[in-house]
């Protein structure tokens, strides 16, 4: 994320991992938020 910040990228990030139900997707969203916030 630091490298992305260097080039000023603020755009889309798509998770391409295994799928799941609502619980799984909630976890994916939380982890993506954690990554984007880092």
């Amino acid at each position, binding site marked *: 994320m630091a490298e992305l910040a260097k080039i000023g990228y603020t755009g*889309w*990030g*798509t*998770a*391409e991992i295994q*799928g799941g139900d609502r619980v799984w997707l909630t976890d994916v*969203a939380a982890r993506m938020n954690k990554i*984007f*916030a880092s």
Partner: protein
Amino acid sequence: MAAPSLCGICVLLQLTAASTPVGPFRSSEKGPVTSYDWLDQSPSAQYIGQQAPVPSLSSVPRPLSPATTMSLDRRTFLATTSTGLAAAGVAMNLTSPVARAAEGSTPKGFKKAVKIGMVREGATLTDKFKLLKELGFDGIELDAPSAVTRSGQGSRSPAGGSPVRQRHRRNQRAAGAGPSDARRDLRTGLGAEHRRNQKGHAAGRGTGDLDFDRERLERFFDRPEGKGSVYRRLRIENGRLVFRRGERCSLFAAARVGADPRRADQEARHQGLQNPARGRQSGCSKGASTGQR
């Protein structure tokens, strides 16, 4: 995250709230007007189980008095209305409960999305979109080609058939054929096609390209008029539309106009018609050409 897949084209759709107002407007206590978008029907919507507040008389726009209208010049009018529209747009976005829950949840201005195949909950695309919106995702990536069909959204054609079908009927009439004539010819011509493919199926030759997939049908009729369009593929004999035998799209067209190819022969016998497709050589589907009757 895994490496991006290279197996197809991805289409990223942004899940925006109030981007396409399709229904009646309702009043909101948080702002002047909130779009009644389909995305707002999620369980987190504000007025689930309640009655939406009735707009007060003061919030209903009233026509300007003649004196006010006359005093507005063009520049003032444009400045006023553009400001008002911009404010309304901001209010629509900010006052939507789903928008409040979803937008801004991704930190630092990023937007997060998942692939459509990752969503294992929800029977239709609409359900999946609602779920992702509820969970705070900003978008969804669709694959192309994929198994996701337009009918998977649960959408229904308007009364009188889809616009594509209505255009098809208009063109039939313009070609000098009444709807009943065109349908009869389609049925007659397609009956041979159907039998031919039944023989191919019995002989072990696949007929996978002759299914009744709705999306393929609509794609076929959505092609622009001109080269490759359905009417270039049709032969007009005696003012009536006749499908060439062996046309790969014949069954698609039959299903699209509601013809039942299984009854083609029966109806042709009743009307004393010779099958117009009889004895013609297959035109385009060499692989499925089995009907040398």
